[in-house]
């Protein structure tokens, strides 16, 4: 049986690797995938160009330690939100995998998306599958070298653009472009652009399916998420077998044949180079290329479509389908709970923070009036998108006095303001050597903007 690409055994990263030349394919799933790829690539490359107010809409501002997401500004203190989002993304992956199998791999994984983009460029430059295979087998000639140089130049340029866009998620893109054009790129910016470009070029141009086979953690544990109601791509042997070639128009049953004409199209289109007719394999990224490829052949032969199709183990066995399985419900319930609590938290998030640090050098001081005084450094963090004036108060000891250097505390949007606060109290009102006091901070113009922070007040103690 002539299988795919026994040609050009290429000693690549993972030992006996044979270069795969996926054949181009058209059909309804391929169209869906192209739509998904273009949207995802579009989001990636366009996102840093979007503006919100007077800044980039999505930006991890490293120097300022802020994360901008459209109208929202997140601070390191809000790390929990990001962590919750990541956990939810992970759970969503479990949920969708249990329902739809590896649709993530086939339609949305960056590895797939960029590989398909690089394959598309390769196809435009080197031609279709058989021309690519012929080109690689041909001895070096001026024409071959020219084609290869063109392909790698295009790939490298696209990779550099990808790397530049990546760094633009961390450095504002206009600033980055400006630095690039004036030759003022910092060493680390240059490094990360090149690093990311190189990774893209390597993964999408060369490693391709090997990333899925050998490096992807998801591919390794996906079987744990599958059950017999999970959507998979499968060939129907009872309909297809015995496979064999035949003349068009002849009756296969008379020749004792099934519907598979053994044309090998399903193998040629497969980006991971497997034969789906051997059954479900972990190499299969459920890209559905073989479905489209086979359907086209079925159309030509005037056989019904769907010899290879999306199905579930239960439906192949004629068992009833079971959508609402316990594991689906559990994933869904955890997801909903997480989503609900995240949203409530976000809604009630108070964009104000107060940090109190007691002066470490002196325990306490006695004032001229005979009061005990402690000194604190206060840091007010206004995480709101506008400036506020605040009222500061303190309590915890009878007759406690708060002395501030500045009468009005005003903190501009998104900044930290530092001030010194002195607390004075009468020694006789203290029960212990050290008392807990509470600082309260309240915005003048917004009732909900209030926060408090406890601190220690130390005196000489009674003895």
């Amino acid at each position, binding site marked *: 049986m002539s299988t795919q690409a026994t040609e050009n055994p290429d000693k690549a*990263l*993972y*030992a006996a690797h044979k270069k795969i030349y996926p054949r181009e394919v058209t059909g309804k799933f391929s169209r869906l995938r192209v739509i998904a790829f273009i949207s995802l690539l579009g989001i990636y490359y366009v996102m840093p160009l979007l503006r919100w107010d007077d800044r980039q809409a999505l930006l991890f501002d*490293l*120097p300022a*330690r802020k994360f901008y997401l459209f109208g929202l500004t997140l601070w*390191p203190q809000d*790390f929990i939100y*990001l962590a919750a989002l990541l956990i939810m993304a992970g759970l969503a992956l479990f949920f969708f995998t249990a329902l739809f199998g590896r649709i993530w791999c086939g339609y949305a994984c960056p590895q797939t998306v960029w590989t398909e983009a690089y394959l598309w460029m390769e196809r435009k430059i080197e031609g279709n599958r058989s021309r690519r295979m012929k080109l690689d087998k041909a001895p070096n000639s001026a024409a071959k070298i020219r084609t290869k140089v063109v392909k790698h130049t295009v790939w490298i340029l696209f990779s550099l653009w990808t790397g530049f866009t990546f760094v633009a998620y*961390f*450095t504002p893109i206009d600033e980055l472009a400006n630095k690039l054009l004036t030759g003022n790129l*910092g*060493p*680390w*910016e240059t*490094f*990360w652009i090149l690093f990311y470009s190189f990774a893209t070029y390597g993964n999408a141009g060369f490693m391709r399916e090997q990333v899925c086979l*050998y*490096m992807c*953690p998801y591919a390794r544990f996906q079987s744990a998420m599958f059950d017999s109601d999970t959507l998979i791509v499968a060939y129907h042997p009872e309909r297809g077998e015995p496979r064999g070639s035949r003349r068009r128009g002849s009756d296969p049953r008379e020749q004792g044949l099934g519907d598979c004409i053994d044309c090998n199209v399903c193998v040629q289109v497969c980006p991971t180079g497997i034969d789906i007719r051997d059954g479900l394999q972990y190499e299969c990224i459920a890209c559905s290329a073989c479905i489209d490829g086979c359907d086209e052949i079925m159309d030509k032969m005037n056989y019904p479509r769907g010899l290879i199709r999306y199905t579930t183990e239960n439906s192949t066995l004629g068992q009833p389908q079971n959508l609402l399985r316990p594991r689906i419900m559990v994933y869904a319930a955890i997801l909903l709970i997480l989503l609900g609590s995240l949203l409530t938290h976000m809604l009630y998030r108070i964009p104000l923070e107060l940090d109190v640090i007691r002066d470490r050098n002196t325990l306490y001081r006695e004032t001229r009036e005979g009061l005990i005084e402690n000194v604190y450094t206060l840091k007010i963090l206004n995480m709101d998108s506008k400036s506020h004036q605040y009222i500061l108060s303190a309590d915890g000891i009878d007759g406690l006095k708060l002395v501030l250097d500045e009468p009005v505390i005003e903190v501009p949007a998104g900044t930290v303001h530092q001030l010194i606060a002195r607390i004075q109290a009468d020694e006789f009102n203290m029960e212990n050597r050290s008392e807990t006091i509470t600082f309260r901070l309240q915005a003048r113009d917004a009732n909900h903007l209030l926060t408090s922070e406890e601190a220690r007040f130390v005196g000489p103690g009674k003895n």
Partner: protein
Amino acid sequence: MASPLPYKIPAIQQAISVLWPSFMTAIAATGLFFSAFDPQDLVPFDLDIDISPLAAYSIGFFIFWLLASISSIGTLYFTISNCRFISKQNR
């Protein structure tokens, strides 16, 4: 000496199995660490070093990558040597 393992793991695969998981670990560690600490506050002994935030984050990342790689090398080394030992015993 014939390889005591059923097959020889190519050097490049060994390298990837060390560098790749530690790379992912380093990303997570960098994210966690720097959301708790501002590199500006970490400059040791009040040294007057002027490094850009991006440089600080990058260096932090590489330190994590290095540490995680050392651990991965340990795992790889013990896995391989244990396999050798066991296959020798079984001989």
